[in-house]
């Protein structure tokens, strides 16, 4: 199955906080049978202890909530585009960061998790890609942008 599917993409205007964002995307995972409910609880707990917000060049920021690859039935990534941004905490510094792109990761193995993370991180290096994701009107548009990531990354960082 493809890493990104339409059912796992959500575009919303705003979101109250990280928990709401993670639940919104987690619900999509539940509906497609990607993960069990307890996986989402563990992502929420992990996000509180070890936040995953990333403050990126150009002010379109991201978060990559995830948990150990347990309770995952198949690998996938859900993307929430939060137009007005949602307040996450930044990785390490734990400062507030306004995040517009939330990638919920689900991997069924450690190796799979690393592969997903590599893809997302490679994608995020491009400010242009982040802009196009943020300003997409429809899920199909987002899918097309993300599908390009299926080809080897040609940017500065060959992950």
């Amino acid at each position, binding site marked *: 199955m493809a890493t990104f599917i339409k059912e796992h993409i959500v575009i919303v205007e705003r979101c109250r906080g990280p928990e709401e964002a993670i639940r919104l995307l987690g619900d999509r995972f539940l509906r497609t049978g990607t993960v069990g409910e307890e996986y989402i609880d563990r992502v929420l707990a*992990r996000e509180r*202890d*070890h936040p995953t917000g990333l403050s*990126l060049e150009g002010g379109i920021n991201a978060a990559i909530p995830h948990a150990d690859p347990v309770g995952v039935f198949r690998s996938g990534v859900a993307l929430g585009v939060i137009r007005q941004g949602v307040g996450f905490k930044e*990785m*390490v510094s734990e400062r507030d960061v306004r995040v517009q792109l939330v990638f919920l990761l689900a991997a069924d193995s*450690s190796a799979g998790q*690393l592969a997903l993370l590599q893809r997302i991180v490679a994608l995020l*290096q491009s400010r242009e890609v982040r802009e196009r994701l943020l300003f997409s009107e429809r899920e199909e548009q987002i899918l097309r942008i993300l599908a390009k990531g299926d080809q080897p990354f040609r940017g500065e960082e060959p*992950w």
Partner: protein
Amino acid sequence: MVKKRVIVICGTGVATSTLVLHKVREFLREKGIDAHVQQGKISDLLTSGGDFDLIISTTAVPPSVNQEKVVNAVPILTGAGKERVFEEIEAKLTNEGE
């Protein structure tokens, strides 16, 4: 020269630290810096934090750990400002008095 000990950590010791670990190993190899690099999680620091010369982290490190030894690895993930982080790593591993 005694081989320096480096630990790369993240919240769970699986995902982000693995990514950073690859990049750090690659960098040290290019620079010809011989160090013992391992991967771990915060709890590893609490049991043996004093044993490491350098802690490269994608999560907040508790204040009980000597912050002089800690390097924030987020720029290695995001790409922005990663050169400065690698310089910091190199300086901390090649400075003898520290």
